[in-house]
């Protein structure tokens, strides 16, 4: 007799755990199966360091400043819409920056309601109550856009689909200040500020108001809170156990086979990994040819590496106070520089001048500089290549913090390949699938999958490749769980 649950969740990432919690709270028996030994998926200290949205309950966060480093030493201190030089002097473009920033946050707020709930869908038509409810959500966006006033509405529609490069440099001269926004617009993405749709991805990043938060106890604490929430709701979380196969019988999910040879029965399976990995687990023959093609063609080219540098002491950055060193440090000296760093990635090469986001971890023990480096190739990471990339990152930091290199005691580089192996994220992509115009809202991850459902009854997607996508919000998981409940399959 196999163990039976109402729902099995593949992967104990924050989204899988959020889905498990939502389902367990509604009285479903839930088992979360995680192949690695730790919960949290990409929400772990080795991989992530900051939150851009409210943390789960029980986790304290602290909003921190951003410092965009300047090769000339004119570093810019940014907090939400305010910008000045780290020396305290006013920044000549502060007013233009503030206007632009506030506008983007206001526009992002309009998209916010679409971004958190499941994507709007009119598949039921407008003759049913559910269909009308969907229509009203779209109407709300329409009303919101209308309320902006004629001039602002025009501006919203004008910039919505454009690229960050043009938007930023229309408003101010190039430098570390617009560079910071450009870097934020493309972080985790296989795109440069000149790529179309990067204004939308920037708005997406700012949709919670644009604050940058450091969770107390690190990302591990965030993951712990998600796991705790799931367990408290009654879900079972089993680590160190992979799912080798999703069992499908008569076009319905029947359960999963586990890496230890065991089997769990369930009428619903939620998968935190990508659509293609999920299809492979259930068997390609169970899906329509077009659905497989779309999953195959999903743009999920990992382009972001994580480098954890353990330091023998606290680094000193020229021109930064001890407090400012604890800010989010960006190496994005110009919008053009961010675009240039993307160029080699198109050909599978390393960026010559990598764009970096760095956070010095809290605490009294040995400090670690957590670095996210953009625009790296997805594959072909030889030992040589790893070493030379690590060296080039350290060298880049050295330029702003003389003597930094000698502080580095240990370097832990996680390439997209490593991230994929560790977490199951498709291609090791930061957001599981590129946050492009064609892969957002009703077309995320692909056409026909916006309702988190696969063709096989009872099979759902609950990871970041589903709407609303990346970031540690748990929203894809919760939305997926809501769909499971609405469909009444478990």
């Amino acid at each position: 007799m196999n163990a039976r649950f109402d729902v099995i969740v593949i992967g104990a990432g924050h989204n899988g755990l959020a889905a498990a919690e939502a389902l367990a709270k509604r009285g479903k028996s839930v088992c979360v199966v995680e192949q690695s030994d730790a919960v949290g998926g990409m929400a772990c200290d080795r991989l992530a360091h900051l939150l851009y949205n409210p943390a789960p309950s029980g986790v304290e966060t602290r909003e921190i400043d951003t410092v965009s480093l300047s090769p000339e030493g004119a570093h810019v201190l940014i907090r939400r819409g305010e910008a000045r030089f780290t020396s305290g002097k006013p920044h000549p473009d502060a007013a233009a920056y503030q206007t632009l920033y506030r506008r983007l946050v206001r526009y992002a707020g309009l998209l916010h309601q679409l971004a958190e709930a499941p994507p709007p869908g009119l598949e039921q038509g407008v003759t049913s109550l559910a269909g009308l409810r969907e229509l009203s959500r779209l109407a709300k966006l329409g009303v919101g856009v209308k309320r902006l006033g004629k001039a602002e509405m025009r501006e919203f529609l004008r910039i919505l689909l454009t690229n960050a490069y043009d938007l930023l440099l229309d408003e101010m001269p190039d430098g570390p200040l617009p560079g910071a926004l450009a870097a934020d617009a493309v972080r985790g993405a296989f795109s440069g500020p000149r790529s179309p749709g990067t204004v939308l991805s920037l708005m997406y990043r700012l949709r919670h108001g644009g604050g940058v938060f450091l969770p107390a106890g690190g990302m591990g604490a965030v993951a712990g809170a998600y796991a705790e929430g799931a367990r408290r709701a009654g879900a079972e979380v089993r680590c160190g156990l992979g799912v080798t196969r999703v069992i499908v019988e008569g076009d319905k999910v029947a359960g999963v086979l586990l890496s230890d040879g065991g089997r769990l029965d369930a009428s619903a399976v939620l998968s935190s990994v990508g659509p293609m990995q999920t299809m492979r687990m259930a068997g390609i023959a169970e899906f329509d040819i077009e659905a497989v093609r779309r999953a195959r063609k999903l743009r999920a080219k990992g382009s972001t590496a994580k480098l954890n540098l353990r330091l023998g002491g606290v680094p000193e950055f020229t021109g930064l106070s001890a407090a400012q060193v604890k800010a989010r440090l960006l190496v994005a000296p110009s919008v053009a520089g961010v675009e240039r760093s993307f160029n080699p990635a198109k050909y599978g090469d390393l960026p010559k001048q990598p764009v970096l986001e760095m956070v010095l971890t809290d605490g009294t023990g040995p400090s670690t500089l957590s670095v996210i480096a953009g625009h790296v190739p997805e594959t072909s990471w030889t030992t040589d290549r790893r070493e030379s990339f690590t060296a080039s990152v350290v060298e880049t930091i050295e330029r702003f913090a003389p003597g930094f290199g000698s502080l580095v005691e240990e370097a832990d580089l996680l390439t997209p390949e490593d991230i994929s192996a560790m977490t199951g994220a498709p291609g090791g992509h930061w957001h599981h699938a590129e946050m492009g115009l064609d892969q957002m809202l009703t077309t995320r991850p692909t056409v026909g999958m916006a309702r988190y459902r696969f063709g096989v009854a009872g099979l759902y997607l609950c990871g970041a490749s589903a709407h609303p996508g990346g970031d540690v919000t748990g929203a894809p998981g919760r939305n997926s769980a809501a769909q499971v409940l609405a469909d009444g399959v478990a």
Partner: protein
Amino acid sequence: MMDGRIETRDVAAVPVGLIETPVFSRLDQISTAKQWGNWAGYISPLVLDTMEFEYFAIRNQSTLLDVSPMHKYRVTGPDAETMLNRMVTRDLRKVAPGRVAYAMWCDEEGMVIDDGTLFRFAENDFRLCCQESMHGWLLDAAWGFDVEVIDESHSVAGLSLQGPTSFSVLQAAGLGAAGSLKPFDLVKLEPDLWVSRTGFTGDLGYELWVPWDRLTKLWDRLWAQRAPWGMRAIGTHALDMVRIEAGFVAAKVDFQPVLTASRLGRGRTPIELGFERLVHFDKGHFNGRRALLKQRDTGPRYNLVRLDIGGFKPAQDALIYHRKRREVGHVTSGIWSPTAKRNIALAELRAPFGGEKTDDLWAEVYVNEEGRWDKRLVPVTVQTKPFFRNDRARATPPRAF
């Protein structure tokens, strides 16, 4: 040029216009009508002599048609059956090696992409013959399966030998072993020569498949036996008449292959085309199954039906009315059938017409009487059986009919 650019004149000449099949020179020699058409990029005869002669040869003697322009794809490998079974609507597990199966395949919404014949040479070896180019679709369908898909359109050629004396011609040409073939059987009679008892006429007939460069030889071998059996070479116009009599549907005529239709809602499901018996819901998943399952419960939107039409004027493209008032569909293929002595047609009717509702249907036929148009409303009756049926089509062994 040294700078890596390419001069247009250095590029090998690409053939422009229609391409000749291996037997074109033979056809050109015997053609008195000189009516040529474009069949998948090849020069193909529409009529060689007169359509009437050719039609009657199909029904009374035997005929030879070059079917080499047909698209042909070889699918081999351990997963060939699984992969194709996921693509087509019928259950291929029931099609044994040495058999041919007529099949349809659909998109994810259950709309027919194309129909064709699947030849099963061996457990893991199939060939799909169809009208539309299907290489890209097959590659998509094959993704994730251990199979190899090869486009044999230009390397495998075929002749269709059809008609009551077709077996006698085969026997005279030394291919009498084909006598044991039952309809839809397939056998390798000689190295490089496969013979199947298949065709598009609803009558006794065979298709012979050889490598491209062997076609001329095969043509000559059969052509040499033509005299006592009254064999004629034919064009596709006559073939179109007999396939309507047999009740076979033609892509782009009776239905629009959904991948080539650009307008919404032009696709039709196998159920709507009258082929629900070839949709095997119990075989596991296949492309479009979920959509078709839904339609099985809600019912079709259209019904493609066979019609017996009053009068004798072919009703091609005629509109169909209910109670002479309400337009409910149109004729997709219509001819005067010389064999059935009836005015016959295939027509698409909006459901429930052609399904539950079949009475009081009328066709509006336009007749051009030397410059003056006349409009006639003639009664139509829905037929369930093909217009042409003859036991000789199924008799095994076949006789010299």
